[in-house]
């Protein structure tokens, strides 16, 4: 379970110097994502054993290991957009279960939005999160409240956009996104599943966290980590 003590409240002044989000930063983010997913893989699999087929954590570990390999293969001057698209395709291909195509779609869509920019400004980042959520919702034919990844991703994207729209820094936006993702993730406990394998359980799916929402929270949280 993610430790709450490491969540920092947004500071009113924002971070003194927001780092430039370039290809290097994207690669660092993906490495953090791999670490956090690996650390919580057993928990994710345990959650999935209740609602799905009990392989979510293992699948994501396999996926991000494949991502690490493809990042090594791509030349150092590969742009952020290209990186994210390659990562998305790799996830689709490498991850078993529904989470591969869904996360893959999100990364590919974000990569499309990044285009051929060398650095990603707050507006682009905000759009990237929004289109990632849109794409995932379209592919999974799911909406918020269906007890899916989207229950964490959509609020995170909205919170990020809200902070950026109000003139906040990316660092503040990331923290707001993490908090929103966490709330969204927690909201899935009470929900009855309307998508995926948990459909079989019907009303019995309520009372358990959705493993996809939890892994999505972890991926959003990896944005905020250093």
């Amino acid at each position, binding site marked *: 379970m993610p430790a709450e003590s490491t969540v920092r409240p947004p500071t009113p002044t924002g971070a003194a110097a927001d780092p430039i989000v370039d290809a290097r930063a994207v690669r660092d983010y993906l490495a953090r994502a791999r670490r956090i997913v690996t650390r919580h893989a057993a928990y994710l699999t345990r959650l999935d054993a209740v609602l799905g087929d009990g392989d979510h954590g293992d699948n994501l570990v396999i996926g991000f290991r494949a991502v690490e390999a493809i990042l090594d293969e791509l030349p150092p001057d590969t742009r952020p957009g290209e990186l994210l698209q390659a990562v998305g395709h790799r996830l689709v291909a490498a991850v078993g279960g*529904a989470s591969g195509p869904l996360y893959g779609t999100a990364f590919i869509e974000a990569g499309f939005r990044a285009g051929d920019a060398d650095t990603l400004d707050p507006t682009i980042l905000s759009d990237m999160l929004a289109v990632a959520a849109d794409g995932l919702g379209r592919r999974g*034919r799911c909406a918020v409240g269906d007890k899916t990844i989207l229950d964490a991703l959509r609020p995170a994207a909205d919170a990020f956009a809200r902070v950026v729209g109000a003139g906040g820094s990316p660092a503040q936006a990331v923290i707001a996104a993490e908090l929103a993702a966490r709330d969204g993730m927690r909201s899935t406990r009470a929900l009855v599943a309307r998508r995926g394998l948990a459909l079989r359980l019907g009303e019995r799916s309520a009372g358990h966290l959705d493993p996809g929402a939890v892994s999505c929270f972890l991926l959003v949280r990896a944005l905020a980590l250093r």
Partner: protein
Amino acid sequence: MTDVVGHVPASEEEIARLRGRIDRLETESRRAFDDAQREADALFAQYQLSQLLASGGSLGELATAVVMELVRLSGAEAGAIWLGERGWAVLTRAAWVGPGADARSPAQLGGLDAARSWSASDERCTGLVLDEEPPTFLAVWASDAQPLDTEGLRVAQLARHELGVAFAGARLREALERERHDLAAIVDSATDLILQVDEERRVLRLNPAGETLLGASLLEAAGRTCAEVLGCDVAGGHREADCPLAEVLASGAPIAYRETALRGRQGDAVWVAGSYTWSVGEAADGFAGGARTATAILRDINAVRALEQLREGFVATVSHELRTPLALIRGYADTLLHLELDAATERSYVERIHQVTDRLAALVTQILDVTRLDADPLVLERAPASFAALVARLRGDLALTGEDGRLVVDVPADLPPVEVDSGRIGQVLENVVANALKYAPDETPVVIGAAVEGDWLVATVDDDGIGIPEAERRLVLEPFHRAGNVRESRIPGTGLGLYICRRLIEAHGGELRIADRPDGRPGTRISFSLPLLPNRGRAVGGEAEPRSAGSGRPPESVGG
């Protein structure tokens, strides 16, 4: 294109043409991209649907999950699914989802044609035949807000075959599960031991009756050899080399009936009889030809054997008891026929024959009684009765022979009524009192008493006789046992009387006991308990009510 632009100065016209071409290419590539996206969406939807279909579950769970998935896929607001049986036209609604789905979807559809025309009559409803045989029909209702998603419907149509297979699988699983459950219920509820072993005679299955008989759970028994689990050798059933399970496995011929012994839960030998069969298990590839198993179905016949032994003993004793008086009669008759005797001797011989005939008649009556007792069930004609009235009737009978003078009746006047078969209990009272009169010295009193203990009336008969030795008290209640001191006394008796009394009292739920007299004088007290009429407040002849469970047992100690 840079080539063209770089080398040739472009005319306005050419620029416009090139612009148009670029636009067309852009439009085309956008269309291709959108198509690819749609195709990817559809593929993913199919993938998710097939994952759902492959995830198993019961027919009901699968039907609900499928309707939910297809309602979402098609962007509908509600949906329902109907399943039919193979070779049976009527479809039954298996699941429904969404607002108004319950009211909109009939519980039954009279066949696929009826289903099609029913769905066509509702313009918001789209029906889809998922399978023809067994019939499977899906209906979805579009919402006011948006039309149905044709892409989603296409996915459902493409997945028709998989849907059919999944439902067939779920039906099959359900049927197998039901069959397995039924078979297991037969095996589990059987009162016979059912044991299955593999080719090495290691235990594969043991039913609850078998667990009880052997005092070993299947968990303990599984994997051990039948010799270890059943202990036929140590119980004296058969030698290890003659194991019927081994015989069946080796010969392939079933054994319809065989008796043997096995080691029961207390380590005692339990005689069992039953059949031994073998069958070929299913191989891993699903075809017959797997390993052989042998099954024993055995019944505990200890009680049957004991009864048989009892009967054999009974027949031997009865024939002996009948032969003795017959031989006497024959002897006297021969003498009378062949010898010239004086009139007095002749008369004494005829009297003797008369006496012995009486004894024979009494013996035959009692043997008939015993046979009737063994008939199952012993029919009692229970009715409310007064114990004092039974005693009074007995006194009247005894008055005919002048023996009533020895009878002392010490019975309280206000005894509550009992609920008994008066004829049978009268017989018991008569027998016990006759014994007392017979074995006690002449002129000594025989005292009849009675007291209420709980829900029971305990009657006692005390005599001043020679008493029954402690060690023989249990035995004299069995057929043909007569106490040693009585045999020596040369007082005639069949050894059946007390046995008949005990059986009759026990048939009423009571107990018959033999004890010393409580006042310490030599002699015997016979006591027996009789059920009181439930709800004592009622008048004699009122309707009887069942006795409460707690009072259903006779008092632990009666007659001191």
